[in-house]
Protein backbone atom coordinates (compact mmCIF):
# COMPACT_ATOMS: atom_id res chain seq x y z
CA UNK A 1 0.00 0.00 0.00
CA UNK A 2 1.33 3.42 -0.91
CA UNK A 3 1.87 6.12 1.69
CA UNK A 4 -1.11 8.02 0.34
CA UNK A 5 -3.34 4.99 0.63
CA UNK A 6 -2.23 4.48 4.22
CA UNK A 7 -3.03 8.08 5.08
CA UNK A 8 -6.39 7.76 3.40
CA UNK A 9 -7.20 4.48 5.10
CA UNK A 10 -6.52 6.16 8.42
CA UNK A 11 -8.22 9.49 7.77
CA UNK A 12 -11.39 7.93 6.37
CA UNK A 13 -11.89 5.54 9.27
CA UNK A 14 -15.04 6.38 11.28
CA UNK A 15 -12.98 6.97 14.43
CA UNK A 16 -10.72 9.61 12.90
CA UNK A 17 -13.63 11.20 11.06
CA UNK A 18 -15.44 11.52 14.38
CA UNK A 19 -12.36 13.16 15.84
CA UNK A 20 -12.43 15.64 12.97
CA UNK A 21 -16.14 16.19 13.56
CA UNK A 22 -15.39 17.06 17.17
CA UNK A 23 -12.81 19.60 16.07
CA UNK A 24 -15.35 21.03 13.64
CA UNK A 25 -17.95 21.29 16.40
CA UNK A 26 -15.66 23.52 18.40
CA UNK A 27 -14.53 25.57 15.40
CA UNK A 28 -18.07 26.37 14.22
CA UNK A 29 -19.04 26.98 17.84
CA UNK A 30 -21.76 24.35 17.91
CA UNK A 31 -23.49 24.02 21.24
CA UNK A 32 -22.76 20.30 21.21
CA UNK A 33 -21.32 19.29 24.60
CA UNK A 34 -20.72 15.88 26.08
CA UNK A 35 -22.01 15.85 29.64
CA UNK A 36 -19.10 15.07 31.92
CA UNK A 37 -20.61 11.78 33.19
CA UNK A 38 -20.78 10.54 29.60
CA UNK A 39 -17.12 11.36 29.10
CA UNK A 40 -16.25 9.51 32.28
CA UNK A 41 -18.45 6.54 31.42
CA UNK A 42 -16.78 6.20 28.02
CA UNK A 43 -13.33 6.41 29.61
CA UNK A 44 -14.17 3.77 32.20
CA UNK A 45 -15.52 1.51 29.50
CA UNK A 46 -12.54 1.89 27.16
CA UNK A 47 -9.90 1.41 29.85
CA UNK A 48 -11.59 -1.60 31.42
CA UNK A 49 -12.24 -3.16 28.02
CA UNK A 50 -8.66 -2.92 26.80
CA UNK A 51 -7.48 -4.17 30.17
CA UNK A 52 -9.71 -7.23 29.99
CA UNK A 53 -8.76 -8.06 26.44
CA UNK A 54 -5.10 -7.67 27.26
CA UNK A 55 -5.45 -9.81 30.37
CA UNK A 56 -6.98 -12.67 28.43
CA UNK A 57 -4.11 -12.45 25.97
CA UNK A 58 -1.55 -12.34 28.80
CA UNK A 59 -3.03 -15.46 30.35
CA UNK A 60 -3.22 -17.42 27.15
CA UNK A 61 0.05 -16.05 25.80
CA UNK A 62 2.92 -18.45 25.38
CA UNK A 63 5.14 -15.86 26.97
CA UNK A 64 8.07 -16.25 24.57
CA UNK A 65 9.40 -12.79 24.11
CA UNK A 66 6.41 -11.26 25.87
CA UNK A 67 8.25 -10.38 29.05
CA UNK A 68 11.22 -9.15 27.07
CA UNK A 69 9.03 -6.81 25.04
CA UNK A 70 7.15 -5.57 28.11
CA UNK A 71 10.41 -4.92 29.94
CA UNK A 72 11.87 -3.06 27.01
CA UNK A 73 8.72 -0.93 26.73
CA UNK A 74 8.95 0.01 30.40
CA UNK A 75 12.61 0.94 30.04
CA UNK A 76 11.91 2.98 26.94
CA UNK A 77 9.22 5.06 28.60
CA UNK A 78 11.27 5.48 31.79
CA UNK A 79 14.23 6.66 29.72
CA UNK A 80 12.31 9.14 27.57
CA UNK A 81 12.54 12.04 30.06
CA UNK A 82 16.28 11.53 30.25
CA UNK A 83 16.70 13.19 26.88
CA UNK A 84 13.49 15.23 26.74
CA UNK A 85 14.18 17.05 29.99
CA UNK A 86 17.68 18.40 29.14
CA UNK A 87 16.54 19.21 25.62
CA UNK A 88 13.60 21.21 26.91
CA UNK A 89 15.78 22.90 29.52
CA UNK A 90 18.69 23.78 27.32
CA UNK A 91 17.42 24.10 23.78
CA UNK A 92 13.96 25.45 24.61
CA UNK A 93 15.02 27.29 27.78
CA UNK A 94 12.01 26.12 29.78
CA UNK A 95 12.05 26.41 33.56
CA UNK A 96 12.84 23.16 35.41
CA UNK A 97 9.19 22.69 36.34
CA UNK A 98 7.95 23.31 32.81
CA UNK A 99 10.61 21.08 31.29
CA UNK A 100 9.82 18.31 33.77
CA UNK A 101 6.12 18.63 33.13
CA UNK A 102 6.46 18.35 29.38
CA UNK A 103 8.97 15.50 29.70
CA UNK A 104 6.56 13.62 31.96
CA UNK A 105 3.82 13.84 29.36
CA UNK A 106 6.02 12.49 26.56
CA UNK A 107 7.39 9.80 28.84
CA UNK A 108 3.90 8.52 29.45
CA UNK A 109 1.47 7.30 26.77
CA UNK A 110 -1.93 8.04 25.25
CA UNK A 111 -4.49 5.27 25.48
CA UNK A 112 -6.62 6.61 22.66
CA UNK A 113 -3.66 6.86 20.32
CA UNK A 114 -2.95 3.22 21.12
CA UNK A 115 -6.52 2.33 20.21
CA UNK A 116 -6.38 4.25 16.96
CA UNK A 117 -3.16 2.41 16.09
CA UNK A 118 -4.72 -1.01 16.70
CA UNK A 119 -7.86 -0.03 14.78
CA UNK A 120 -5.59 0.95 11.91
CA UNK A 121 -3.94 -2.48 11.99
CA UNK A 122 -7.35 -4.13 12.03
CA UNK A 123 -8.37 -2.19 8.94
CA UNK A 124 -5.12 -3.20 7.24
CA UNK A 125 -5.59 -6.80 8.24
CA UNK A 126 -2.14 -6.73 9.87
CA UNK A 127 -1.83 -8.98 12.97
CA UNK A 128 -0.28 -7.93 16.28
CA UNK A 129 0.45 -9.40 19.69
CA UNK A 130 -2.53 -9.75 22.03
CA UNK A 131 -0.60 -8.63 25.08
CA UNK A 132 -0.07 -5.08 23.86
CA UNK A 133 -2.73 -3.61 26.17
CA UNK A 134 -0.54 -4.70 29.08
CA UNK A 135 2.15 -2.55 27.51
CA UNK A 136 -0.09 0.51 27.69
CA UNK A 137 -0.67 -0.03 31.37
CA UNK A 138 3.02 -0.49 32.08
CA UNK A 139 4.14 2.50 30.03
CA UNK A 140 1.86 5.02 31.69
CA UNK A 141 3.66 5.55 34.96
CA UNK A 142 7.49 5.19 34.75
CA UNK A 143 8.17 8.23 32.57
CA UNK A 144 6.17 10.45 34.90
CA UNK A 145 8.14 9.34 37.93
CA UNK A 146 11.49 9.75 36.22
CA UNK A 147 10.56 13.26 35.08
CA UNK A 148 9.55 14.20 38.61
CA UNK A 149 12.81 12.82 39.95
CA UNK A 150 14.77 14.92 37.46
CA UNK A 151 13.00 18.07 38.56
CA UNK A 152 13.50 17.22 42.20
CA UNK A 153 17.21 16.62 41.70
CA UNK A 154 17.52 20.05 40.18
CA UNK A 155 15.31 22.06 42.51
CA UNK A 156 15.44 20.08 45.73
CA UNK A 157 11.70 20.47 46.29
CA UNK A 158 9.97 17.58 47.98
CA UNK A 159 6.39 18.66 48.47
CA UNK A 160 3.69 16.06 48.08
CA UNK A 161 6.13 13.66 46.55
CA UNK A 162 4.72 10.41 47.89
CA UNK A 163 1.18 11.59 47.28
CA UNK A 164 2.02 12.32 43.65
CA UNK A 165 3.26 8.80 43.00
CA UNK A 166 0.29 7.27 44.80
CA UNK A 167 -1.97 9.48 42.69
CA UNK A 168 -0.74 8.09 39.44
CA UNK A 169 -0.39 4.46 40.51
CA UNK A 170 -3.85 4.06 42.00
CA UNK A 171 -5.23 6.75 39.70
CA UNK A 172 -8.29 5.72 37.75
CA UNK A 173 -6.67 5.15 34.41
CA UNK A 174 -3.82 2.94 35.61
CA UNK A 175 -6.11 1.24 38.10
CA UNK A 176 -8.69 0.34 35.46
CA UNK A 177 -6.07 -0.90 33.00
CA UNK A 178 -4.31 -3.06 35.59
CA UNK A 179 -7.60 -4.15 37.12
CA UNK A 180 -8.93 -5.10 33.71
CA UNK A 181 -5.75 -7.07 33.05
CA UNK A 182 -6.30 -8.99 36.27
CA UNK A 183 -9.97 -9.66 35.49
CA UNK A 184 -9.07 -10.80 31.99
CA UNK A 185 -6.16 -12.95 33.10
CA UNK A 186 -8.17 -14.67 35.85
CA UNK A 187 -11.35 -15.27 33.88
CA UNK A 188 -9.62 -16.24 30.65
CA UNK A 189 -11.15 -16.99 27.27
CA UNK A 190 -14.22 -18.57 28.82
CA UNK A 191 -14.89 -15.49 30.87
CA UNK A 192 -14.36 -13.19 27.93
CA UNK A 193 -16.83 -15.16 25.86
CA UNK A 194 -19.60 -14.18 28.29
CA UNK A 195 -18.94 -10.47 28.08
CA UNK A 196 -17.49 -9.89 24.65
CA UNK A 197 -20.81 -8.66 23.28
CA UNK A 198 -20.28 -5.71 25.57
CA UNK A 199 -16.53 -5.27 25.91
CA UNK A 200 -15.34 -6.36 22.47
CA UNK A 201 -17.90 -6.18 19.66
CA UNK A 202 -19.15 -2.61 20.11
CA UNK A 203 -15.72 -1.30 21.11
CA UNK A 204 -14.83 0.47 17.86
CA UNK A 205 -18.14 2.30 17.87
CA UNK A 206 -17.70 3.51 21.44
CA UNK A 207 -14.25 4.71 20.45
CA UNK A 208 -15.87 6.89 17.75
CA UNK A 209 -18.05 8.58 20.34
CA UNK A 210 -15.06 9.11 22.59
CA UNK A 211 -12.99 10.58 19.77
CA UNK A 212 -15.81 12.97 18.93
CA UNK A 213 -15.47 14.33 22.44
CA UNK A 214 -11.66 14.27 22.30
CA UNK A 215 -11.82 16.35 19.13
CA UNK A 216 -13.82 18.97 20.97
CA UNK A 217 -11.48 18.88 23.96
CA UNK A 218 -8.37 19.19 21.79
CA UNK A 219 -9.81 21.97 19.66
CA UNK A 220 -10.72 24.00 22.72
CA UNK A 221 -6.96 24.27 23.31
CA UNK A 222 -6.17 25.49 19.82
CA UNK A 223 -6.44 29.04 21.13
CA UNK A 224 -3.38 28.43 23.30
CA UNK A 225 -1.04 27.80 20.38
CA UNK A 226 0.32 31.28 20.83
CA UNK A 227 1.36 30.64 24.41
CA UNK A 228 3.36 27.59 23.39
CA UNK A 229 5.90 29.23 21.12
CA UNK A 230 7.47 27.98 17.91
CA UNK A 231 10.19 25.90 19.57
CA UNK A 232 7.80 23.81 21.63
CA UNK A 233 5.55 23.43 18.62
CA UNK A 234 8.42 21.94 16.66
CA UNK A 235 9.27 19.73 19.63
CA UNK A 236 5.66 18.49 19.74
CA UNK A 237 5.76 17.52 16.09
CA UNK A 238 9.28 16.11 15.69
CA UNK A 239 9.84 14.41 19.02
CA UNK A 240 6.99 11.95 18.43
CA UNK A 241 8.57 10.92 15.14
CA UNK A 242 11.91 10.31 16.83
CA UNK A 243 10.21 8.37 19.62
CA UNK A 244 8.25 6.34 17.11
CA UNK A 245 11.41 5.33 15.30
CA UNK A 246 13.01 4.36 18.59
CA UNK A 247 9.97 2.40 19.63
CA UNK A 248 9.70 0.53 16.36
CA UNK A 249 13.37 -0.36 16.49
CA UNK A 250 13.05 -1.52 20.09
CA UNK A 251 10.11 -3.70 19.10
CA UNK A 252 12.09 -5.08 16.21
CA UNK A 253 15.00 -5.99 18.48
CA UNK A 254 12.65 -7.71 20.92
CA UNK A 255 11.25 -9.84 18.17
CA UNK A 256 7.80 -8.29 17.97
CA UNK A 257 5.77 -8.67 14.79
CA UNK A 258 5.61 -5.69 12.45
CA UNK A 259 2.22 -4.78 13.91
CA UNK A 260 3.57 -5.03 17.45
CA UNK A 261 6.62 -2.92 16.71
CA UNK A 262 4.42 -0.31 15.02
CA UNK A 263 2.17 -0.16 18.09
CA UNK A 264 5.14 0.16 20.44
CA UNK A 265 6.44 2.95 18.22
CA UNK A 266 3.10 4.73 18.30
CA UNK A 267 2.94 4.37 22.08
CA UNK A 268 6.43 5.85 22.41
CA UNK A 269 5.39 8.67 20.10
CA UNK A 270 2.27 9.44 22.07
CA UNK A 271 1.96 11.85 24.97
CA UNK A 272 -0.31 11.32 27.95
CA UNK A 273 -3.26 13.60 28.56
CA UNK A 274 -5.00 11.61 31.26
CA UNK A 275 -2.62 10.24 33.89
CA UNK A 276 0.16 12.79 33.45
CA UNK A 277 -1.79 16.07 33.66
CA UNK A 278 -3.45 15.21 36.95
CA UNK A 279 -0.22 14.03 38.52
CA UNK A 280 1.82 16.95 37.26
CA UNK A 281 -0.75 19.49 38.37
CA UNK A 282 -0.40 18.19 41.91
CA UNK A 283 3.33 17.58 41.96
CA UNK A 284 4.50 20.59 39.92
CA UNK A 285 1.87 23.27 40.43
CA UNK A 286 4.28 25.96 39.32
CA UNK A 287 4.53 24.42 35.84
CA UNK A 288 2.37 26.17 33.28
CA UNK A 289 -0.47 23.90 32.10
CA UNK A 290 -0.92 25.95 28.96
CA UNK A 291 2.45 24.57 27.85
CA UNK A 292 2.16 20.89 28.59
CA UNK A 293 -1.53 20.45 27.90
CA UNK A 294 -1.41 22.29 24.62
CA UNK A 295 1.61 20.46 23.33
CA UNK A 296 0.38 16.99 24.39
CA UNK A 297 -3.31 17.39 23.67
CA UNK A 298 -3.65 19.99 20.95
CA UNK A 299 -0.53 19.29 18.90
CA UNK A 300 0.94 15.82 19.39
CA UNK A 301 -2.35 14.00 19.85
CA UNK A 302 -4.05 15.20 16.63
CA UNK A 303 -0.77 14.88 14.76
CA UNK A 304 -0.35 11.25 15.81
CA UNK A 305 -3.95 10.39 15.07
CA UNK A 306 -3.96 11.80 11.58
CA UNK A 307 -0.45 11.86 10.09
CA UNK A 308 1.57 9.97 12.65
CA UNK A 309 -0.14 6.60 12.49
CA UNK A 310 0.27 5.99 8.75
CA UNK A 311 3.74 7.55 8.90
CA UNK A 312 4.91 5.24 11.68
CA UNK A 313 3.46 2.28 9.87
CA UNK A 314 5.39 3.24 6.77
CA UNK A 315 8.51 3.67 8.92
CA UNK A 316 8.10 0.17 10.26
CA UNK A 317 8.28 -1.07 6.67
CA UNK A 318 11.98 -0.29 6.58
CA UNK A 319 12.68 -3.01 9.12
CA UNK A 320 10.09 -5.60 8.18
Amino acid at each position, binding site marked *: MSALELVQLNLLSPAILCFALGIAATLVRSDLRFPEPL*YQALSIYLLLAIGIKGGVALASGTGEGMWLALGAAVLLSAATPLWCFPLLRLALRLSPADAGAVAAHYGSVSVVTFLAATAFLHALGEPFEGFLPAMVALMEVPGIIVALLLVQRLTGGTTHWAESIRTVVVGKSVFLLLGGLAVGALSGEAGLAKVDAFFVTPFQGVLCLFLLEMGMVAARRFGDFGKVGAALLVFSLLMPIAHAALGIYTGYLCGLSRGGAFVLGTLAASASYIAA*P*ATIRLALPQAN*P*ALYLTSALAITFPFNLTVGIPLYYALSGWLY
Partner: protein
Amino acid sequence: MNIETMKRVTIVAEAVIAERIQDDILRLGATGYTTTKAEGRGSRGVRASEWEGRNEKIETIVTPAVADELLQHLSDHYFEHYAVIAYAHTVDVVRGAKYR
Protein backbone atom coordinates in the same frame (compact mmCIF):
# COMPACT_ATOMS: atom_id res chain seq x y z
CA MET B 1 -35.84 28.74 67.87
CA ASN B 2 -32.22 29.08 68.69
CA ILE B 3 -30.61 31.10 65.89
CA GLU B 4 -26.85 31.66 65.86
CA THR B 5 -24.65 33.36 63.32
CA MET B 6 -21.91 31.41 61.63
CA LYS B 7 -19.82 31.93 58.52
CA ARG B 8 -20.31 30.15 55.25
CA VAL B 9 -17.07 29.83 53.31
CA THR B 10 -17.44 29.04 49.61
CA ILE B 11 -14.50 27.69 47.65
CA VAL B 12 -14.40 27.05 43.90
CA ALA B 13 -11.38 24.98 42.94
CA GLU B 14 -10.12 22.98 40.01
CA ALA B 15 -11.09 19.36 40.61
CA VAL B 16 -7.58 18.02 41.01
CA ILE B 17 -7.08 19.71 44.38
CA ALA B 18 -10.64 19.37 45.68
CA GLU B 19 -9.95 16.35 47.84
CA ARG B 20 -6.92 17.95 49.41
CA ILE B 21 -8.91 21.07 50.26
CA GLN B 22 -11.67 18.97 51.79
CA ASP B 23 -9.13 17.34 54.09
CA ASP B 24 -7.79 20.76 55.02
CA ILE B 25 -11.28 21.97 55.86
CA LEU B 26 -11.87 19.18 58.34
CA ARG B 27 -8.39 19.52 59.78
CA LEU B 28 -8.91 23.22 60.43
CA GLY B 29 -11.95 22.51 62.54
CA ALA B 30 -15.03 22.37 60.29
CA THR B 31 -17.56 19.66 61.10
CA GLY B 32 -18.55 19.04 57.50
CA TYR B 33 -18.82 20.42 53.99
CA THR B 34 -21.02 20.19 50.92
CA THR B 35 -19.70 19.90 47.36
CA THR B 36 -21.25 20.43 43.96
CA LYS B 37 -19.81 20.04 40.46
CA ALA B 38 -19.25 23.37 38.78
CA GLU B 39 -17.76 24.87 35.68
CA GLY B 40 -16.43 28.33 35.36
CA ARG B 41 -14.38 30.97 33.82
CA GLY B 42 -11.73 33.05 35.50
CA SER B 43 -8.47 34.75 34.80
CA ARG B 44 -6.53 31.54 34.68
CA GLY B 45 -8.81 29.03 33.04
CA VAL B 46 -6.68 26.05 33.96
CA ARG B 47 -7.89 22.52 34.37
CA ALA B 48 -5.81 19.36 34.64
CA SER B 49 -8.06 17.32 32.39
CA GLU B 50 -11.67 16.54 31.70
CA TRP B 51 -11.13 13.09 33.12
CA GLU B 52 -10.54 14.64 36.56
CA GLY B 53 -13.78 16.54 36.34
CA ARG B 54 -14.18 20.28 35.97
CA ASN B 55 -14.41 22.55 39.01
CA GLU B 56 -15.65 21.61 42.41
CA LYS B 57 -17.59 24.06 44.56
CA ILE B 58 -17.12 23.43 48.28
CA GLU B 59 -19.23 25.10 50.94
CA THR B 60 -18.69 24.81 54.64
CA ILE B 61 -20.47 26.32 57.63
CA VAL B 62 -17.96 27.21 60.30
CA THR B 63 -17.36 29.54 63.22
CA PRO B 64 -15.93 32.96 62.33
CA ALA B 65 -12.55 31.93 63.74
CA VAL B 66 -12.35 28.84 61.58
CA ALA B 67 -13.49 30.86 58.56
CA ASP B 68 -10.61 33.27 58.99
CA GLU B 69 -8.11 30.50 59.38
CA LEU B 70 -9.46 28.68 56.37
CA LEU B 71 -9.28 31.73 54.11
CA GLN B 72 -5.75 32.38 55.33
CA HIS B 73 -4.76 28.78 54.69
CA LEU B 74 -6.20 28.74 51.17
CA SER B 75 -4.55 32.02 50.39
CA ASP B 76 -1.18 30.74 51.60
CA HIS B 77 -1.23 27.33 49.97
CA TYR B 78 -3.32 27.41 46.83
CA PHE B 79 -3.96 30.86 45.44
CA GLU B 80 -0.63 31.26 43.76
CA HIS B 81 -0.54 28.16 41.61
CA TYR B 82 -4.03 26.76 41.42
CA ALA B 83 -7.33 27.92 40.00
CA VAL B 84 -9.13 28.63 43.27
CA ILE B 85 -11.36 31.37 44.62
CA ALA B 86 -12.79 31.65 48.13
CA TYR B 87 -15.14 33.98 49.90
CA ALA B 88 -17.13 34.11 53.12
CA HIS B 89 -20.31 35.63 54.48
CA THR B 90 -22.44 35.50 57.58
CA VAL B 91 -25.38 33.11 57.82
CA ASP B 92 -28.00 32.30 60.45
CA VAL B 93 -28.11 28.68 61.51
CA VAL B 94 -30.36 26.68 63.77
CA ARG B 95 -28.58 24.62 66.43
CA GLY B 96 -25.17 26.20 66.13
CA ALA B 97 -23.56 23.43 68.17
CA LYS B 98 -23.53 21.26 65.08
CA TYR B 99 -20.87 23.46 63.52
CA ARG B 100 -18.48 23.72 66.43
